[in-house]
């Protein structure tokens, strides 16, 4: 195994964790990790939160220290873009004209923010998505250099809302424009959408739904964002948070099967021999929910990386985890576990005497599918346990806030 080479394209959560997991699983061969981003790989979740609102250097958000790559003999090639894969010769070509052979190839290319084709978007002033450390530096600079600090966030998903909360903290006047009828429509239930809409409103962030942006007009240092209902908003800074497109070009160029992402089997292998795909770009089967999904989360990136490492090292394994996510906005911590899609009943549980602590439990018949905890880690960990063990929950006890939240109280015996 010493003379084998593993090449990883993409050095974010998935790629970096894979490199280290390979060593943990006993891989003795070479590891080459490529990424077009020149910055030492960093945690992405803080980008819209602590990193945006503080003066922390990006190094403080590093996934691993530089020296640990050296200690584990991981060749980190930063600022180097992989331009092509030759699956027959098993070699990747690099933008700098060089090439690298591989025995196993892992595509961890993630996804890129969608920049919608709105007239004027190309000439807008201070318009950024939020995906990379550089995006955040641009956003910080724009907000610090502006005296009026009017920010318009297009898209009320998690990135948009987290960024809105952070910009507010930085002293901006923030407006969020969402095309759908409610915020977070694609990702959560109306209960949660209502909660977050109120939360932002209380923090003086203006949220407007059913707003379709049709034009952006740039003037000297500012912009006018125009919607289809003829309303318009002045913006010194525009954040685009309308979702992502999977970076599947390399995979598709070698004929790998693509659906909503790069299709992989339970071991994270693509349809092409010795080529794997993990993280945001992978379209994979979840055994617990028995369907194909694509997830944009740290959990998915890290856990798939572990499975790929074991697979490449010749160990039996399948990817079988319950998805979990989190989002921090203002002093609210949202923790989600499971996939709520397909639910036919929602139980909202409040905790006695606690205004901003509750949980939302999603059922399909008797089966618990997912739990969202708001400032309620206990609901989240109990939910995780119940979903894993497919426990039957006593719904009337769950609804009853005087019943203490603990597993023994909630199970049907």
């Amino acid at each position, binding site marked *: 195994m010493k003379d084998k080479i593993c090449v990883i394209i993409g050095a974010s959560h998935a790629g970096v964790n894979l490199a280290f997991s390979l060593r943990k699983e006993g891989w003795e061969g070479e590891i080459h990790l490529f990424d077009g981003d020149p910055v030492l790989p960093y*945690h992405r979740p803080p980008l819209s939160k602590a990193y945006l609102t503080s003066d922390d250097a990006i190094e403080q958000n590093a996934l691993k*220290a530089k020296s*640990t790559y050296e*200690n584990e003999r991981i060749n980190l090639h930063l600022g180097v873009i992989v331009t092509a894969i030759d699956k027959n010769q098993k070699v990747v070509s690099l933008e700098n004209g060089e090439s690298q052979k591989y025995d196993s190839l892992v595509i961890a290319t993630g996804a890129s923010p969608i920049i919608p084709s709105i007239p004027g978007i190309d000439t807008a002033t201070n318009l950024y998505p939020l995906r990379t450390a550089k995006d955040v530096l641009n956003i910080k600079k724009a907000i610090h250099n502006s005296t009026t600090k009017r920010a318009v966030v297009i898209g009320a998903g998690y990135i948009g809302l987290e960024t809105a909360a952070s910009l507010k903290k930085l002293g901006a006047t923030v407006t969020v424009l969402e095309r759908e009828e409610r915020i977070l429509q694609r990702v959560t239930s109306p209960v949660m959408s209502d909660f977050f809409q109120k939360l932002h409103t209380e923090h003086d962030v203006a949220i407007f739904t059913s707003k379709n942006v049709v034009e952006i007009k740039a003037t000297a240092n500012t912009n006018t964002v125009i919607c289809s209902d003829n309303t318009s908003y002045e913006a010194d800074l525009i954040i685009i948070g309308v979702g992502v497109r999977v970076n599947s070009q390399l995979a598709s160029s070698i004929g790998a099967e693509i659906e909503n992402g790069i299709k992989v089997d339970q071991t994270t292998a693509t349809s092409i021999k010795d080529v794997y795909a993990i993280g945001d770009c992978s379209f994979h089967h979840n055994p617990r929910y028995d369907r194909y999904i694509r997830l944009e989360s*740290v959990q998915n990136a*890290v856990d798939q990386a572990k499975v790929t490492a074991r697979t490449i090292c010749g160990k039996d394994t399948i990817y079988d985890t319950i998805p979990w996510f*989190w989002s921090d906005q203002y002093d609210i*911590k949202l923790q989600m576990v499971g996939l709520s899609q397909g639910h036919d009943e929602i139980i909202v549980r409040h905790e006695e005497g606690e205004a901003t602590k509750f949980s939302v439990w999603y059922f399909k018949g008797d089966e618990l599918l997912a739990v969202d905890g708001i400032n309620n*880690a206990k609901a989240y*960990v109990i939910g995780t346990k119940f979903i894993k063990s497919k426990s039957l929950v006593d719904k009337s006890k769950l609804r009853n806030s005087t019943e203490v939240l603990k597993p023994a109280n909630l199970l049907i015996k």
Partner: protein
Amino acid sequence: MAKVTFITTDNEKITLEASSGSIMELAVQNGVKGIDGDCGGVCSCATCHVHVNENDFEKVGEPSEIEADMLELEDEVSEYSRLCCQIKVSDAIDGITLKVVEE
């Protein structure tokens, strides 16, 4: 400046020094096995679980409510469990020993 000693599951003893940041960051920056800090230090993932040496627990203190809740159903939770992303490095914790829970 504080000295912190980690004991990993394979009984390796690593003593590190820092003056700021969290214990999790210190461990990750130095590649201490079993401390991953996947969520970046916001008490969301429970991949930085340690058992504080009994005699040092007073220096470190009790977990917050959310941290205690995250720990409650963890395997190998003990009365000395902490998520070390929630422990700030300071002079007050100088000399503590932490047992890493995960491999």
